[in-house]
């Protein structure tokens, strides 16, 4: 299965969610600033990178995890993605599109704008880190819900592989 976490810029909330999914961040405590800054793509993409679907890694069940920044076009993106799957005869069960924007708070918006749009990273990044930590448990909860939702599919695949 392919799972795409998408948000406005593909730099903070979606990267955090994807990293949680891949087990790169703790779920029993808040991550440190260093742990967040070490994540691939965290607070790095800029405007011209929006629209690129970036591969993050494979989870323990071989699901491919991606992140995408699609500005404010979440509905258009989801309509387009599900529609294109249908047009090309691909099963929509093999793809999950997870919108992380509902968990983005004002600190992430202000920090993200300062760091990625205005390129004042020394000011923007600490604000973003505070925002990510503020939303962290909500993002953990979202990722756990996603994992539960796809679990039935995973167990079927795991059984098939063992056989």
């Amino acid at each position, binding site marked *: 299965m*392919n799972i795409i976490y998408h948000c406005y810029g593909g730099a903070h909330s979606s990267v955090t969610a994807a990293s949680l999914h891949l087990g790169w961040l703790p779920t029993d405590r808040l991550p440190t600033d260093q742990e967040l800054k070490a994540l691939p793509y965290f607070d790095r993409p800029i405007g011209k990178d*929006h*629209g690129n679907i970036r591969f993050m890694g494979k989870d323990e069940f071989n699901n491919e995890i991606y992140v995408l920044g699609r500005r404010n076009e979440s*509905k258009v*993106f989801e309509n387009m993605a599900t529609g294109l799957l249908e047009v090309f005869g691909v099963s929509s069960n093999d793809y999950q599109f997870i919108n992380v924007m509902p968990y983005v708070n004002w600190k992430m918006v202000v920090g993200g704008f300062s760091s990625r749009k205005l390129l004042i990273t020394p000011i923007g990044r600490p604000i973003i880190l505070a925002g990510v930590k503020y939303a962290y448990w909500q993002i953990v909860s979202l990722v756990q819900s996603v994992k539960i939702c796809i679990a039935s599919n995973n167990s079927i695949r795991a059984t098939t592989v063992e056989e």
Partner: protein
Amino acid sequence: MKIFFLCRTGHHTSLLAAGLHLGLIKGSKGLRHVVLGIRGWNDINLKDVGTPFYVGMDKDNNEIYTIGIASNSFMMERVVNEIIKLIGIEAEERRIINVSEAVSGWTRIGLAIKKMHLNSLAKMAFNRGIESELKKVQPILRKSNITTC
């Protein structure tokens, strides 16, 4: 092959381009009347923008679709390409032609009015933009080597 024409809604400028390619629009005589008769013209709920719309099959058996990509046209064109690449479709199996550059001022006004649910007024604005859009769409199609009838 599948050919996708992209514009803001997928039911205006891109449908004109698809109509030209399929031979539904021939010349400028009675243009507005012809365009209004094309299946799907202005038949869009703004919540459904992004969903591919099947227009028909061309003489080379290519399936023709339109897709609405809203206002971030270059970014969303990239998203379309990325999704298709992720699905694993080869470049020879699809073509994407973005005609968003040809969207006229009247269509932009029409969209703003449509957001206010003033559909009749919006339709008038969309219809006013047809001629100017046709003039802008033709060079884009020629540049993309898309045949028109």
